[in-house]
């Protein structure tokens, strides 16, 4: 190992504030929370044990699955809608429709999750705006009206809120691919749908995947939407964590649930890092 010359020391000194920030505000709290998941009274080696983890799985295994399914399903739907929006913006032949869509689709991005939850709560309820409209149009009778304020409501809220973000990324990537590759396919007789899925989407696959992963992690951490739309069981892990802390002051199980969320997010983060590595090489 080379000796610490003054220059090297200076370099270390310069990076120190940033490093301290990362350690202090990120690594320490995260580690504390992870360790907290294993802290029990009278446990092994002065208070370590798996009690919190076991309790978390006993009480909330169903919610873990619920969270994973809801977020995965939402991510898939977001991807589909984003491809649809980006595809229309790239391949659409009606300039006016393209302009309107380009102007409209970004709005939900600027609306906070809590407002999305509130808006959809009044929209999707049994006698909410949506069912009211359907009844008024004669599509359904008042008896047939059902509330969508359950898992479906959460999925709708997530997709509604996150699609613009992913669509923005995807549409940007689509706009920057060589138009020649689209025209060459058209020249050979490919339909617009085939061009979208065989020519355009493969060329923006990395961007799409990154958008999906970022959305997945964002949705994992949303508390307001499940709290407002789905005040029942099963629900999402964020609600459970808040409940453990607010109702019982039970940081141990809350930390254990947090660890499970972290592992789910890490799974997709791993995919993200792999893509980033592959792109750099």
């Amino acid at each position: 190992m080379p000796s610490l010359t003054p220059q090297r020391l200076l370099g270390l000194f310069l990076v120190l504030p940033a490093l301290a920030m990362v350690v202090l505000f990120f690594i320490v709290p995260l580690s504390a929370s992870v360790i907290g998941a294993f802290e029990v009274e009278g446990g092994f080696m002065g208070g370590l044990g798996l009690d919190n983890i076991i309790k978390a799985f006993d009480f909330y295994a169903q919610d873990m699955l619920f969270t994973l399914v809801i977020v995965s399903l939402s991510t898939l739907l977001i991807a589909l809608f984003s491809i649809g929006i980006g595809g229309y913006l790239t391949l659409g032949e009606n300039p006016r429709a393209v302009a309107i869509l380009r102007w409209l689709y970004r709005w939900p991005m600027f609306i906070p999750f809590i407002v999305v939850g509130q808006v959809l709560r009044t929209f999707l309820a049994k006698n909410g705006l949506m069912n009211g409209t359907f009844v008024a149009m004669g599509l359904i009778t008042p008896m047939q009206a059902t509330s969508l304020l359950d898992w479906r409501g959460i999925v709708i809220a997530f997709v509604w809120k996150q699609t613009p973000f992913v669509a923005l990324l995807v549409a940007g990537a689509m706009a920057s691919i060589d138009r020649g590759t689209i025209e060459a396919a058209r020249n050979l007789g490919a339909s617009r749908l085939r061009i979208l899925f065989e020519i355009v989407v493969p060329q923006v696959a990395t961007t799409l995947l990154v958008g999906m992963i970022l959305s997945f992690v964002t949705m994992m951490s949303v508390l307001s939407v499940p709290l407002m739309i789905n005040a029942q069981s099963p629900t999402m892990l964020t609600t459970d964590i808040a409940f453990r802390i607010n109702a019982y002051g039970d940081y141990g199980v809350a930390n254990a649930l947090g660890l499970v969320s972290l592992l789910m997010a890490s799974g997709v983060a791993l995919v993200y890092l792999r893509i980033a590595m592959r792109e750099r090489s």
Partner: protein
Amino acid sequence: MDASERPFLDLTGVTVSYGSTRVLEGIDLGIGKGEFVALLGASGCGKTTLLRTIAGFIVPDAGTVSVGGHDVTRLPPDRRGMALMFQSYALWPHMTVAQNIGYGLKLRRQSRADIARRVGEIAAMLGLQGLEARKPASLSGGQRQRVALGRSLAVDPEILLLDEPLSNLDARIRLSLRHEIRTLQQRMGITAVHVTHDREEAMVMADSIVILDKGRIAQRGTPEEVYNRPASAFVAAFMGAENVLTLSGSASGEGFAIAPGPFNAGCLVPDLLPTGGVEVRFRAEAGTLGPADAPPPEDGRTLRLAGHVVSTSYPGGIWRHAVRLGEGAADGATVLVDAPHPVAQGQAVSVLLPPDTFFVFPAAGDAPPPASDSRSGDRRRRLEVQQA
């Protein structure tokens, strides 16, 4: 091509605008089956727009495009039996060479075995064997353009449209691909329309050259015709006759008599031009340099100019001299003349232009020239040469 028959690819009165800008103005162009036509012009002249209109990516405001007697003006690009090759190659980066070449056949619902056989044939024809499983990113520029050519040819198009396909390639690869494309086109009997701004490329590849200027056809002819008998000052300049002189003369029985001027002797040219100012254009290699006191040519048809050498350069093979004509005269000009041996700077010389090596056109403004809207461009070019 039978004159009474309609050309295979026939454009009549094709007019295209982008917004309020007219890009093509009443283009009439007939291309025979199996013919190789080069669309030549400076950037912005509308040549790519014309090609894209033929391909079906642009619907003209007026006029028709027909193929084999059928009006295809409003047909989508894939229903015209045409394949387009792009300047950017436009290969699909996520597909292998074989998938790129075979995609058109896949769209035509051919069986896997048929596709594989055809892809094999095309790869063999274009020297791409062994590269079928590679992605475009791992190919050289020349190989990529061959794949793009293979992709176009795989579907057996009747018409091949080439949009400056060679302009991104190295000079050496460009030369060999020119030859290859031309050979394949002749062997397969495909009708080809090739857009380029490279004069030499158009000359060596095409049966017929169409020179476009500001959305109109300035001249159409064989390479030899447009080179040796340019129809307008614009075409002459575009075909390399960059030296320009403004002289005057009068119509005479046999043609046109150029009057002696401050730096030129009189001479007779066969062109039938009205009395007045004329624009004389010639290439640097057209003239010969001689001593200033050389005897005047006796045939009366050679144009003799007097001046002195202001600089020399060696572009290879010959020496290029900048010759200032008309000592101190306000209306003098500088021309470039090639010679096999260098002539010292400051030396007084005469420039001799034998008949048929210089072109005479009515001076801009004096008479209506064939391409009236190219005047300002010519003036600009003349200034550039004078400042050279």
